[in-house]
């Protein structure tokens, strides 16, 4: 028998989708029966009370959670988010229900032993409820009490070789795609750079001194599987600058139907015979391809690396050999001024250890500028909008490049400074008047 009546939550379970309510009920039941004999360190009925407070919130139409807190682990300003219930007498199991963010391994590779270990830890010292994964990529532990925070942190760091992630006005846990480990499209080793920068910027990750959150995300290719272009303040997208490698025999095999387009991903229904003109050539955004006389040609100078042709014919077309990444800055979700996509600031850079140029010429000058000029709670993208692209280039010392501009004379409008113009702005007025009457 459930501790609290939850008719409104029960109704949520009737939909066609997997239900978080069902998940929480299952965990509540598991904790109540405790067949594994777990030595619970927070109230055994925490999940029951969680359902209870959620039901009450639906009933009242407002939340019963309070916002934020001073809780954390010693020396860290991030990784723990204080959550308190404002009805502690009614729901003592969730009076404290703090969230902990656990830094995910690069590429989110786990062993089952590791997953079992963190789940066992969280079942014993927390609610047992996790969110795999949060938007930043962290493993999210949902709900524990204040005394358990240091205990969980000790066990994570000492027994599982695992750190907390970022929260608050910190560098957030850097996140990357699965990269070269499993994907032939990866133009650089996303896991290597993600791990390297995570280690390099530990201070920024754990001790908040930024105006607001800051996110790095690493995509191995323009398919953007971690959506870095939309979700990170600094987005690294893999690119090549030479030519797409073409295997003409494989192209013919796609045209002849021996190879399935998109690696068979659209095999669920009959789409008819593969039509290279319609499905590849005609969809190229820059129209830089042609297929004539059984030969595929690409004008690589016009290619914008949209990945469509490679995605459709992966056996026939491969990324180039001269690989690196582009860096974009300023993407964010909509709080002020709506959502923003990243703006290109580095068209191409080699991404090879020890990443000195990326750190010293891009990341750190941007941080210096944003830390000094950024208003409280202002994201990098908002500062770029407020002070302008020109200012960003000035502060980073990056050279302006036509590829940074979406359309001529719309974004950004660059004003020359006197010292940038040969002869400055001074003129001989008499010479001028010879040709221009007053």
């Amino acid at each position: 028998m459930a501790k609290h009546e939850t008719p409104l939550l029960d109704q949520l379970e009737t939909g066609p989708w997997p239900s978080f309510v069902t998940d929480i009920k299952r965990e509540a039941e598991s904790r109540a029966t405790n067949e594994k004999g777990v030595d619970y360190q927070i109230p055994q009925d925490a999940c029951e009370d969680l359902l209870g407070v959620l039901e009450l919130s639906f009933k009242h139409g407002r939340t019963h959670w309070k916002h934020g807190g001073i809780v954390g682990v010693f020396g860290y300003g991030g990784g723990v988010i204080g959550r308190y219930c404002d009805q502690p007498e009614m729901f003592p199991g969730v009076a404290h229900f703090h969230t902990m963010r656990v830094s995910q391994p690069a590429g989110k590779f786990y062993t089952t032993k590791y997953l079992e270990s963190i789940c066992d830890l969280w079942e014993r010292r927390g609610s047992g409820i996790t969110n795999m994964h949060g938007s930043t990529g962290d493993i999210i532990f949902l709900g524990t009490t204040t005394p358990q925070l240091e205990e969980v942190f000790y066990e994570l760091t000492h027994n599982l070789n695992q750190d907390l992630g970022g929260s608050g006005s910190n560098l957030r846990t850097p996140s990357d795609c699965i990269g070269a480990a499993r994907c032939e499209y990866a133009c650089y080793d996303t896991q290597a750079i993600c791990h390297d920068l995570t280690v390099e910027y530990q201070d920024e990750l754990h001790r908040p001194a930024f105006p607001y959150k800051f996110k790095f995300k690493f995509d191995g290719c323009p398919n953007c599987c971690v959506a870095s272009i939309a979700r990170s303040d600094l987005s690294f997208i893999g690119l090549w600058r030479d030519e797409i490698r073409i295997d003409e025999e494989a192209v013919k095999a796609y045209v002849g139907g021996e190879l399935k387009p998109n690696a068979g991903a659209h095999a669920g229904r009959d789409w008819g015979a593969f039509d290279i003109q319609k499905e590849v050539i005609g969809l190229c955004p820059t129209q830089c391809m042609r297929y004539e006389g059984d030969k595929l040609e690409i004008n690589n100078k016009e290619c914008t690396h949209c990945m469509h042709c490679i995605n459709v014919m992966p056996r026939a077309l491969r990324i180039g050999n001269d690989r690196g990444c582009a860096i974009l800055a300023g993407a964010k979700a909509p709080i002020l001024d709506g959502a923003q996509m990243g703006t290109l600031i580095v068209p191409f850079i080699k991404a090879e250890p020890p990443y000195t140029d990326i750190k010293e010429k891009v990341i750190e000058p941007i941080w210096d500028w944003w830390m000094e000029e950024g208003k409280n709670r202002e994201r990098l993208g908002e500062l770029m909008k407020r002070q302008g692209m020109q200012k960003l280039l000035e502060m980073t010392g990056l050279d302006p490049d036509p590829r940074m501009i979406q359309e001529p004379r719309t974004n950004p409008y660059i004003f020359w400074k006197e010292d940038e113009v040969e002869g400055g702005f001074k003129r001989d007025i008499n010479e001028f008047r010879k040709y221009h009457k007053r």
Partner: protein
Amino acid sequence: MEYDEAKEKIKVELTKKLKTKSKFYFNDLAKILGMKPREAKKLINQMVLDGVLEYWSSGSTSMYGMPGTGKQSSAEHED
């Protein structure tokens, strides 16, 4: 600026403002110290380790305050 001088400055300025607010952004503290953020960070972190300041986080934003000040500590059953 020496650490002890910085600590005193922060304590005095934050105490003065206590009537109106108890939580401060990092940039407010850097301004009090008259230092660039990166330099101020080292001193401010040391103050957190020494218990002169404590972190407060909403989850998305972090702030700093003196331990025991503001409503938080009593309201959240932590004192």
